[in-house]
């Protein structure tokens, strides 16, 4: 029964990118249309998962954060009144969920998944992608050398610095968008970015591509 309902939700649907069609999808989802919600998820979940992987550095934690974030989106969707762009609203929820996960994780003594990933010298993104047939062992090993150093350097950053750097450098979001998505001013986001790059430069002074 559950499987049939999940199938009906249709999470593999192609998504339209225009603002107007997205607005219609939001309105339909607010009326309880689960297919519309599935299409909204398909529009934004790839980036949410990437952000979660980069911040949490554990596929299992990223999967949990993904689910927590989109369930919150689903439950709160009827309160969304288009005061901001939908993606900004989703990323705000997702980044808050990730930061909560990081806070909870710090309270835990063990750091299982992350330690496993680092011990293998592969980033969580690479671990998550290992199941793909195109991921050759040589490619994983080559990129893993630099990636491992960057992962360790990123570990030295504060949660907020890592969040801002990830959104700006890896996700290509504008500082203004980052400010909106993380509930900070654009200036504060800019300062976090500068601090993050200064620390990374210090840690990685001998690494060049």
């Amino acid at each position, binding site marked *: 029964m559950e499987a049939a309902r999940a199938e009906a939700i249709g999470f593999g649907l192609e998504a339209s990118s225009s603002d107007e069609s997205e607005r219609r999808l939001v309105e339909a989802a607010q009326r309880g249309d689960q297919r519309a919600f599935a299409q909204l998820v398909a529009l934004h979940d790839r980036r949410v998962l990437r952000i979660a992987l980069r911040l949490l550095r554990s*596929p299992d934690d990223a999967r949990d954060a993904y689910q927590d974030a989109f369930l919150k989106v689903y439950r709160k*969707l009827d309160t969304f009144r288009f005061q901001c762009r939908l993606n900004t609203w989703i990323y705000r929820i997702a980044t808050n969920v990730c930061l909560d996960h990081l806070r909870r994780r710090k309270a835990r003594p063990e750091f299982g998944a992350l330690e496993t990933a680092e011990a293998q010298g592969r980033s969580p993104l690479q671990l998550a992608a290992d199941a793909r047939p195109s991921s050759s062992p040589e490619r994983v090993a080559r990129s893993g050398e630099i990636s491992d150093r960057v992962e360790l350097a990123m570990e030295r950053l504060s949660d907020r610095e890592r969040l801002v750097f990830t959104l700006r450098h890896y996700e290509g979001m504008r500082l203004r968008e980052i400010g909106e998505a993380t509930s900070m001013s654009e200036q504060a986001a800019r300062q976090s970015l500068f601090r993050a*790059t200064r620390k990374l430069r210090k840690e990685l002074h001998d690494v060049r591509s």
Partner: protein
Amino acid sequence: MSAPDGPPPLESNLLRRRIQLYLYGELGFAERSEIDCWLEQDPEFRELFLDERAFLESLSASALGPEPEPLLDSCREALGRAVAEVPAPCRRRSLLARASAARSRVAAWMAARPLAWQAVGATAMLAIGFLAGRAFSPRAFLHSLSAPAAAADRTLTGIEAVRLDPVSDRVRIVIEERRAISGVSSDPTIRGMLLDTVQGAHAGARLTSLDALRVQASDRDVREAMLQIMLGDDDVGVRLKAFEAVEDYASQPDVREALVQTLHRDRDPGMRVHAIQLLREHPGRDVAGPLQELVERESDPLVLQETLRILDALGASMERY
């Protein structure tokens, strides 16, 4: 960074920040131009720029990797199952329903209580009404009302007047409305509007309407409208268009009568030439008299020559007796 057109002597970290913002596309046009200028003219700044770019590229290169597709698929499946177990997000509506049910319960309770208790009940009902009003979002309701209709073909272009009847408290608003209607010219509504338009003020609309009506020139009312245009429109282009629309019916008495009138009344030589040539293609004794009359007063040599030819072909005299 000592070149005359180079950057001011800033700390290396501050320059790196500027370069970083430049590389991330966060600078405005003027600031970008300034960096471009320093790059061209200051080798020391260029070296710093290249170093910063190489550093950021090294971070990007290290992050390059395939998309986590298998993980994404499993996340979507899990989310699909989780969403199916969560009730639909209709929290506000259910609050309203709950408030309404509570109000009914309080009303039933009040009916069975003494008067003093009923005052307490009334206060409770007011509170429930207040909370229900807050829970129900009128914005969402208004928004659904304002959603555009699927086949909307009209726009409001202005409000001409607003009148308030103070007795009934009713408002009358006179609105100027712009509508777009489409369909085939044989559609009764379209046909009627085209017949109105051929007598309208806009010459371009008259021309297009005549074109659209041309296929219906066999209809008496349509042809009558066209002949009126042919004889009376101020614009010679529109008169010519009406002429072309009826030329296939040159053997019809109403059209022949209009052609003769054109020869006598139209000031445009081109129209008169067209009329006489059409009559020459469709000669008949019925036009002999008017043509004899035309010979006496026609000044255009081509029209006169054609008229004489027709009279000759008809075996009619060149003069009226």
